[in-house]
């Protein structure tokens, strides 16, 4: 489980996050939603340590991550898998080398063992035919799936996905969502997904946190979203007339 306690993050005089507290449960797909500029990416970067928090604590299974020195964070970081919005695959490496990279850097596995793990991970994301391709030769959806394969290569305990559906067609988005959900349940890991995609929220949102103007505004699951009267959340989720009609129907 990942827990954030009273996190505040300032860039100079600009307070981007104000006193955010939340729990991200293990074995569940936890979603962070919010409008652009609301602070959800900053929150995620604080959780993984790319930004140091100005105040507050980040706890990974009870360990105060934010109090650790950079060198002491390594052990926890090696248990984190991160899927970036654009994939962030290393351009100069093939798909196979990308997935093998963390294994090469942090394990003492033989080449054969690493190759077996790479084959398994790529097979898990249905990309067993792409070993020798470079990132530039992949479609957007394939890049995301390679990103997932790299993220799970080290058997992470924590998986972060930054807008995994951005730029993807609805069908591919569903494939990615299902994959994230399956991996979360299969490995019993703590998964945090940042998303704008309301399909994802209503499909896989087991624990949804709504960030509004740098504050945690609301928390619940996908069913609660249909029932809530929180004005800011409903304005965000049901922005279009189409979504408003769906909500009206769902509420009878």
């Amino acid at each position, binding site marked *: 489980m990942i827990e954030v306690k009273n996190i505040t993050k300032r860039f100079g005089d600009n307070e981007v996050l104000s006193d955010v507290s939340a729990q991200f449960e293990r074995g569940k797909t936890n979603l962070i939603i919010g409008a652009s500029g609301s602070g959800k990416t900053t929150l995620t970067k604080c959780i*993984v*340590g*790319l930004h140091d928090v100005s105040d507050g604590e980040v706890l990974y299974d009870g360990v105060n991550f934010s109090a650790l020195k950079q060198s002491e*964070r*390594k*052990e926890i*970081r*090696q248990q*984190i898998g*991160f899927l*970036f*919005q*654009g994939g*962030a*695959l*290393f*351009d100069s490496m093939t798909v196979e080398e990308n997935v093998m*990279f*963390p294994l*090469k*850097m*942090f394990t003492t596995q033989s080449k054969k063992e690493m190759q077996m793990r790479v084959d398994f991970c790529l097979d898990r994301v249905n990309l067993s035919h792409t070993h020798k391709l470079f990132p530039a030769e992949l479609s957007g959806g394939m890049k995301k799936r390679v990103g997932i394969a790299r993220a799970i290569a080290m058997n992470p305990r924590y998986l972060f996905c930054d807008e995994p559906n951005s730029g993807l067609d609805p069908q591919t988005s569903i494939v990615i969502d299902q994959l994230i959900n399956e991996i979360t349940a299969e490995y019993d890991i703590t998964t945090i997904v940042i998303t704008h995609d309301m399909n994802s929220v209503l499909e896989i949102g087991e624990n949804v946190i709504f960030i509004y103007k740098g504050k945690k505004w609301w928390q619940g699951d996908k069913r609660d979203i249909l029932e809530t009267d929180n004005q800011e959340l409903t304005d965000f989720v049901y922005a279009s007339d189409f979504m408003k009609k769906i909500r009206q129907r769902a509420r009878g």
Partner: protein
Amino acid sequence: MQFIVELGRYVKLLGAVFSRPEQWKTFRNQVFKEMNTLGIDSLPIISIISVFMGAVITIQTASNLDGGFIPLYSVGYAARQSMILEFSPTIIALILIGKVGSSISSELGTMRVSEQIDALEIMGINSANYLILPKVVACILFNPFLITLSMVIGISGGYLATVFTGIMAGSDYEYGVRYDFNSFDYTYAMIKTVLFAFVIVTVPAFYGYYVKGGSVEVGRASTKAVVSSSIVILILNYVVTQLLLI
């Protein structure tokens, strides 16, 4: 004030660069890869520039010695000294900034804006050390070879100029090249080469590593990197020359 802040960030980056590599085997492989990219790939351009520099120095010097008072072999001497003391270590370093420095800055800048550096950091890898140290080591090890080759090719270019233009006898040139050679001149050139190699990598790496924004900023960082490292090299050249030759 801004300069001091930038200098502080540069020193901080160097602190991160010069730490123990995560995996020695990976580090060694990267050094060889960078030697190929930054060094061997620069051989053609360095060779072309050096041969023409040597030839032009020879023709210009010879064409200015028309009084008969100064012996013709001094053309070979001047070409050798010019190539060893200044043209090969300094001019080639400035050329390398344009070729290698801008490429380092763009590469790191693109990795920054496409979140590849963040990906390394999240994995627990010291990205500055992983990405920059192999380039520094490769350049410091390979550039002396590159510059020595440039000296040899430049001096040979001068000889070819005497043969093709007939401006003076090749034997006079050859005598001048061998005349009164002081090995410290070569040592001085190598000291400059190593210092310049450090600047050629670290200054552009600094601009690329800290890029914020998108492709426009990557381009700007690359331009800034070339301008700044050229100025640093020119200043360093003056300081080292004053310290070692006076």
